[in-house]
């Protein structure tokens, strides 16, 4: 299991180094980092989650991605709790011999994580963030 749900920040460079350390069979490493955008109004945010289910959901999304693409490694870190503007929220790392698998798997994981992992964003100024239609339709691509 390479999934972490945590309040603490993470270090993308260190996570990437850990993934490629001691091996030379990886051809492509893709990272996605999601950050808190400073929206007009409120720059602080709280990420609520469903402990237990969150980990299960992420593990299941990772397993699905590994079933679809020849991944050599995969890592998902998602934070919860209060987060300031500019803070890192989520990291997805994928390693594969070829670039398209690494790209597609990372995008797949993000698409599912967005609307299938139990997280909810509340912005200081504007309240609970509404789910975006676009996030639901993004899943169509993977059917």
């Amino acid at each position, binding site marked *: 299991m390479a999934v972490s749900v945590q309040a603490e920040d993470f270090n993308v460079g260190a996570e990437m180094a850990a993934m490629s350390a001691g091996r030379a069979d990886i051809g492509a490493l893709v990272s996605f980092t999601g950050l808190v955008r400073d929206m007009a109004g409120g720059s602080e945010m709280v*990420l609520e989650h469903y402990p237990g289910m969150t980990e*299960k959901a992420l593990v299941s999304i990772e397993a699905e991605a590994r079933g679809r693409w020849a991944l050599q490694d995969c890592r998902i870190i998602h934070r919860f709790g209060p987060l300031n503007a500019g803070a890192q929220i989520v990291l997805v790392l994928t390693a594969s011999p070829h670039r398209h698998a690494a790209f597609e798997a990372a995008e797949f994981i993000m698409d599912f*994580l967005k609307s299938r*992992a*139990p*997280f*909810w964003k509340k912005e200081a100024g504007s309240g*609970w*963030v509404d789910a975006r239609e676009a996030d639901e339709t993004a899943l169509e691509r993977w059917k």
Partner: protein
Amino acid sequence: MQVLYFAWMRERIGVPKEKVVTSAATVAELVEELKARGERYAMAFADMASVRVAVDQELTELSASLKGVREVAFFPPMTGG
């Protein structure tokens, strides 16, 4: 059975979780029972298009059976990532 609420469902109902004794056979029946508990519940469950449900930590539908279930959670559409 443990019933959990998240995000604005939690805020509307006023508690993050509660023990519920029910004979409801499905999630939909449980929702009807909860709505009858008062205004806060009725408000929280007013727009079911905006309510998602997980049974024993797996996303499911309102028609899902509650047989042998230990944990039901209600929450708005997820907004992670």
